């Protein structure tokens, strides 16, 4: 299986090319082909879950071929646990997005599916590339299809939102390109080889001055995509005006590009600058958490509310990441997946009622649980998942993030906690206004509940939400080597001290922990940032991890 990743990568593109050959009048044929391609794309990516070896080397399924030897760029694909999970999220959400569009899109159907499939290849490529130039290529390839998805199939303000999305992301990413180039020439001056090999970049010791610049260049590229306050203003517009599938992809996958970028590139390549910029990122994240939540609380537009909740949630992800300890980073990755599931689901839910009523005004709704009980139930699960109710996925992510942040700094943790509380407030307020009470608006009296197709789009999300909430260990296990790899680069002192403070003889608790992956994982938090054992954490690290 030397070309396994390439097959996953190019399946959607092949589908798009196939669609080019179908006459545009055959709308149903186009829909079937697109759906089958997306389902196939998901299907062939599922074995990744089983074939990825959590104990194996850092990057697996490696594919390498010369691409542009003149500049040292390669066609270099490879994945670790982090990208494995994000790739699976992408293929799944891609399929869900395409399935959800069956009735929603009636105009220019062929172009629509072609753009969605091309977008899918772009996203997968970005997660798989270990060559920085190749990554950048896929990163930019995503822009154009998304621009069209918003611009053609969006709602009222679509042209404005589309161009805003396009230009914001573009400015960020061209600055990132300069950072890549600076890195490229520095690597050449040290090693004498022109290369864009990210695994080589991970081994560089760059002088702080240059790190500082490179971090900033990357920061602009990734922060716009996350989006971090104050670069977030494109997001509410883009989300609100995008068609449902566009919002789902945007929220579930494209925002993860930014956080993925930080994890894959910023943290390991420029670790000292990363530590230097922690205060800035933390302040921006805290502002993002609180501000996003407060603005969400005040929204009258259902979709806009979910969009602002994204700002808040993604800021939480950033905060967890920049705690720069294993638990914080793991939590941040898990929360990325959770955000993909719950926010993706929430956008789908808005799409369902929008398709029926063609309005997103929250005041237009109310009492929907009477006429759409199944819908209301799913909405409830997604809301709880978003809030972080125990037994659902959101809880695991938020817990890990809070734990990581608490160890790093208690004040930050307090702000992060406020985000959780506010999150519960705006989501429950939304739920109450739309689902409960009497049906005031006569137009809502005869709304039909979910169709089988619509239910099918939610089923995988529900399964995952419960699975990750009850038994997250398989996910955590897949992230261990990735997180360790990042930690070794970004916070080596932490890793060293942390090893030291776990020299106590194994207790009964530890033995128990060693057999339970989740407990084992959670137990890897016995030290504070200074390497002193924490009183509350009783268990230590298991011997085999050292």
């Amino acid at each position, binding site marked *: 299986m030397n070309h396994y990743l390439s097959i996953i990568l190019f399946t959607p593109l092949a589908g798009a090319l196939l669609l080019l050959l179908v006459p545009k009048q055959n709308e149903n044929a186009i829909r079937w082909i697109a759906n089958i391609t997306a389902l196939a794309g998901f299907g062939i990516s599922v074995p990744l879950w089983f074939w990825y070896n959590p104990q194996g080397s850092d990057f697996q399924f490696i594919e390498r071929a010369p*691409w*542009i*030897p*003149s*500049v040292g760029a390669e066609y270099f694909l490879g994945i670790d646990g982090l990208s494995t999970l994000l790739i699976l999220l992408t293929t799944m959400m891609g399929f869900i997005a395409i399935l959800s569009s069956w009735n929603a899109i009636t105009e220019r159907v062929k172009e629509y599916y072609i753009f969605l499939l091309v977008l899918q290849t772009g996203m997968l490529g970005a997660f798989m590339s270990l060559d920085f*130039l190749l990554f*950048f*290529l896929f990163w*930019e*390839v995503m*822009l*154009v299809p998304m*621009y*069209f998805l918003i*611009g*053609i199939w969006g709602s009222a303000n679509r*042209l404005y939102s589309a*161009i805003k999305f*396009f*230009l914001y992301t*573009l*400015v960020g990413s*061209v*600055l990132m*390109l*300069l950072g890549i*180039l*600076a890195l*490229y*020439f520095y690597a050449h001056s040290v090693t004498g080889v022109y290369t864009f090999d990210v695994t080589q970049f991970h081994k560089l010791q760059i002088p702080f001055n240059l790190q500082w*610049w490179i971090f900033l260049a990357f920061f602009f590229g990734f922060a716009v995509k996350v989006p971090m306050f104050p670069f977030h203003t494109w997001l509410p517009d883009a989300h609100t005006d995008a068609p449902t599938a566009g919002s789902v992809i945007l929220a579930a996958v494209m925002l993860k590009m930014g956080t993925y970028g930080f994890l894959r590139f910023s943290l390991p390549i420029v670790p000292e600058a990363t530590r230097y910029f922690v205060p800035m990122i933390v302040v921006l994240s805290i502002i993002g958490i609180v501000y996003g939540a407060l603005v969400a609380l005040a929204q009258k537009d259902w979709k806009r509310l979910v969009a602002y909740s994204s700002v808040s949630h993604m800021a939480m992800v950033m905060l967890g990441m920049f705690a720069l300890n294993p638990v914080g980073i793991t939590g941040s990755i898990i929360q990325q997946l959770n955000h993909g599931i719950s926010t993706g689901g929430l956008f789908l839910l808005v799409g369902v009622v929008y398709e029926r009523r063609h309005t997103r005004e929250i005041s237009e709704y109310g009492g929907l649980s009477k006429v759409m009980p199944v819908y209301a139930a799913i909405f409830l699960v997604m809301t709880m998942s978003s809030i972080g109710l125990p037994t659902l996925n959101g809880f695991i992510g938020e817990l890990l993030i809070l734990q990581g942040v608490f160890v790093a700094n208690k004040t930050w943790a307090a702000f992060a906690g406020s985000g959780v509380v506010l999150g519960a407030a705006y989501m429950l307020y939304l739920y109450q206004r739309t689902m409960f009470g009497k049906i005031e608006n006569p137009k809502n009296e005869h709304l039909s509940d979910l169709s089988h197709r619509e239910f099918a789009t939610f089923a995988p999300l529900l399964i995952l939400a419960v699975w990750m909430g009850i038994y997250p260990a398989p996910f955590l296990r897949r992230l261990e080597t990735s997180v360790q790899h990042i930690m070794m680069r970004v916070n080596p002192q932490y890793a060293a001290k942390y090893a030291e403070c776990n020299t106590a003889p194994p207790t009964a608790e530890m033995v128990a922990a060693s057999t339970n992956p989740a407990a084992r994982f959670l137990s890897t938090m016995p030290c504070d940032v200074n390497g002193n054992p924490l009183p509350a954490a009783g268990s230590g690290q298991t011997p085999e991890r050292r």
Partner: protein
Amino acid sequence: MPPGVSLSDFYYILPELVLTGGALLVLIADVLLPKERRAALAWVTLLALGATAAALVPFANTHVEVAHGLLAVDRFSLFFKILFLLAAAITVLMSIRYLETEGAASPGEYYFLILCATLGMMIMAGGIDLITIMIGLETMAVSFYILAGYIKPNQRSNEAAVKYFLLGAFSLGILLYGMSLMYGLSGTTNLRVMASAFVGQEKDPRLMLAVILVVAGVGFKIAAVPFHMWAPDVYEGAPTPVTAFLSVGSKAASFAMLIRIFVEGMPSMSADWRLLFYVLSILTMTAGNIAAVTQSNVKRMLAYSSIAHAGYLLMGIVAGTARGITATLIYLMIYSFMQLGAFAVITLLRRKDVVGDELKDFSGLAFRNPFAAFAMLLFMLSLGGIPPTAGFMGKFWLFSAAIDAHYYGLAVIGVLNSAISLYYYVRIVVFMYLKKETSGSDPVITPALALVLGVTVMATLVLGVYPQLLFRVADVSARTLGVAGITAAIR
């Protein structure tokens, strides 16, 4: 025969001779062919261009100075000659229907002038002597003066020709003055001899004046701000294929001349001219892009975009390294394809009832002619530098040259400019894909235009995904430039 010139020198200018013969053949055929069969002249022209290209083949690995140092036959000139021939061929293919629609009286002269302009460009690229360069430049410029005013009943076309002529003559004077200073200070017109004569005279104010004047003169030719005033009017008024050829061929030839004069002729003065080009580059790309944002005429918009591109191209010159020159060559080649392609789409939109160069003429193109719209989309993304199109690979080289030479500020301004530029490129896309109201008859693709679009689209895509071959060729071409040690001196 002057001393030093031998019969074998004529062998080395075989391609130029073939082209001259071809041009004359077109003129003769114009007289001999009956009026209704004059459309065949386009094919005679293409044949001449093809024969010239074939005549280039024996010189693929040649590296000599011809006729006592008047011309250089090397990879550098070869690279440009291929570019000119390609651009000319594409222009001719674009012209066929355009001339029919405009009802131009005598296509023979038109094609003759295209070939003459190409000849001038080829001499400019090969010239390593101020005299040769001047002759090439004038051959090209005079041809373009006439071509710009070729549509005689059209007032805009006339205005373009007059403006171009007046400002061209003015800029020529400045350039000549600068060149005469160079000659006076070195006692030679040969650039390579001059290079060694100037060593140690870096602080001579007369030489600095010469640099300033030559930079200004060349600045006119490449339409660098603040010497760009003529460009928008000429580009808008000239017949569309001529605009295309002007913005590609003339610009590339002027860059070839620029590299010859400065890199080969004045490497010891590089600190001065790099500083001047540094300022010009920033001014040019910024002013070009900002002005382009407000245009509603697509030809005019592309004129400003072409100005901005001169600014990007100057980044390679500012870097002044082998990497910088390579980047300039790569970008010129890529730019030619995307720019010619974009003008081909405008030509396609020229119909009996529609002029086709206003933004609103693009409205709904995706519904009426999906292929043309897709092609234009690619060219616009490529001009804006979005992967996976060729434009990105070109910009990648230019920016990397700037970063490599530690011009970080310039690189930042460059990338921000390319972001600004997308705003107006995307506007065309908005009209093509997002607006539905249309006017006039459906645009029809003729076989010739289909060929043009096919070639330019393929080039834009292939060079964007797999540019290795172009990179190699450009690298080799740039490194054959000049006498040994010049690039080292620049570094």
